[in-house]
C-alpha cells in the first residue's frame, strides 16, 4: 500500500500489529502441526532474503557489464545465463532481460498487476514498488514519477516503461557515470543503487560515494 496507510499501520495502530502477529503465528503453527511446513525451512527462507539476496547482487552484474564488454554482450544475448555466471538465479529470475539505458532512452520497470520483481538480483521489492501509487502512475505518468524520485532526464531522452505482465523479469543497466574510468568492478558496484536498476534512479556519480 501507499506510504500513508503504511505509516498508519505501523506507527499509529500498534494494537493491530499485535493482532497480525497472533493471526500469522496461529496459521503457522496450524500448518506445522498438520505437517505441511517445517519451521527450520521458514527460518532459512527468511534468512535468505533478509541477508543473502538483495540489490548488491544486481550491482555486481551492472558493474561487470560496465567493466567487461564481453560480459555486457553476453548479458544482452542471454541475461539469465550471464547473471547465473555470477551465481544469481532461480525464483522470480528464471527468465531475465537486461535493459540498457542510453542517452536516447531511459528504461523504467513496473508490475501494474501485482509485484513482479527480479528477486535474485534485487531481493524483495520495497513497499513503494508494490504501492497503488507507483503501479497506477508508472505507465501513464512516468515522467511525473521520475521527477518525484529526483531523476533528471536528458533533453531528448525517451522514457520506455516495462510492465512485467508475464514471467520475464527486467534489470535496468544504468548509464555508467563520467569520472569512473579505470575503477575496479568492486568500486563501480558502489555507484549502483537499487533504484537505478529499477529505473527510478540513476547511478551515483563518483563524487557521491565516499572515497
Amino acid at each position, binding site marked *: 500500500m501507499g506510504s500513508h496507510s503504511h505509516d498508519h499501520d505501523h506507527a499509529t495502530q500498534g494494537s493491530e500489529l499485535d493482532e497480525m502477529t497472533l493471526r500469522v503465528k496461529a496459521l503457522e503453527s496450524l500448518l506445522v502441526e498438520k505437517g505441511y511446513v517445517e519451521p527450520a525451512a521458514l527460518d532459512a527462507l527468511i534468512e535468505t*532474503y533478509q541477508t543473502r539476496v538483495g540489490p548488491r547482487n544486481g550491482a555486481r552484474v551492472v558493474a561487470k557489464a560496465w567493466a567487461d564488454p564481453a560480459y555486457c554482450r553476453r548479458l544482452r544475448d542471454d541475461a539469465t545465463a550471464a547473471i547465473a555466471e555470477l551465481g544469481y538465479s532461480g*525464483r522470480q529470475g528464471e527468465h531475465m532481460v537486461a535493459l540498457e539505458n542510453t542517452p536516447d532512452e531511459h528504461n523504467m520497470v513496473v508490475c501494474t498487476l501485482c509485484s513482479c520483481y527480479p528477486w535474485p538480483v534485487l531481493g524483495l521489492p520495497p513497499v513503494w514498488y508494490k*504501492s497503488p501509487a507507483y503501479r497506477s502512475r508508472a505507465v501513464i505518468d512516468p515522467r511525473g514519477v521520475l521527477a*518525484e524520485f529526483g531523476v533528471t532526464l536528458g533533453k531528448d531522452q525517451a522514457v520506455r516503461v516495462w510492465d512485467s505482465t508475464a514471467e520475464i523479469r527486467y534489470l535496468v543497466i544504468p548509464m555508467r557515470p563520467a569520472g569512473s574510468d579505470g575503477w575496479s568492478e568492486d568500486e563501480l558496484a558502489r555507484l549502483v543503487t537499487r533504484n537505478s536498476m529499477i529505473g527510478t534512479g540513476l547511478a551515483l556519480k563518483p563524487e557521491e560515494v565516499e572515497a
Partner: protein
Amino acid sequence: MNGAQDLGGMMGFGPVVPEADEPVFHAPWESRVLAVTLAMGALGEWSIDAARFSRESLPPAQYLTSSYYRIWLAGLEKLLLARDLVSAGELENGRPEAPARPTARPKLVAARVATTLAAGSPTARPAPAPARFAVGDRVMTKTINPAGHTRLARYLRHHAGEIVAVHGAHVFADTSAHFRGEDPHWLYTVKFAAGELWGPDADPRDSVTADLWEPYLDAV
C-alpha cells in the same frame, strides 16, 4: 478479472513516497507470511498464477486498503481452504481437526531451501505450434473481459503495438491460474506508443512495453 489489482492508469493514489533506509520486513509477521507462502507453494498444490488470482479476487475495497503482506496472507488462506489443505474450523481455531492430506510435492525442508530457490519455476515450455508473429510485426490486442485471471491489463486492451521480442512458449497464466493446465503459448514483448494508450497528452517520445501471450493478440 477487472479487479482492484489492475491498477495501470488509475488516478488518485497520490505521490510515490519511498521510505529512506527501508527494512526488508517492517515486522516479523511479514517475514513469516512470506516464508509460509513460499513453503506452501513448494507443495505443488497451486501455480504462481493461482496464487495471484487468489490475491486479486479479494474484494476491491479490501485489496486497496491492505498492506501487501496482508493481501498475501488473505490470498494464502483462500487457497488453503479451496484446496482442502485446512478446514474453515481449523483456520478459525488454529488447531488441527483432521490429518493432513497428501500433497503433490513433499514438505520443503531447510536442507532443500537453497536448491529449491535456485531452481525456481521456469515457465518456458516446448512450443505447440510455430510462432504466429515475428519481431517487427504490428499487432492489435484483443478486447476481452474475462471473469477469471488474465495478464492482459485493461489499459492494454484493443491497442495497436509492435512485437519487439519473441520469448518462446510459456505457461499460459489464464489457464494455469484456474487449474486448467499449462496450455503453453508463444510469449511476446509488445511495444505501444504512449499516445496510443493514453491519447494526445502523452509524451510523443515515450512508450510502454508489456509481455503478452499469443491468444491476446490479433494480426493487424
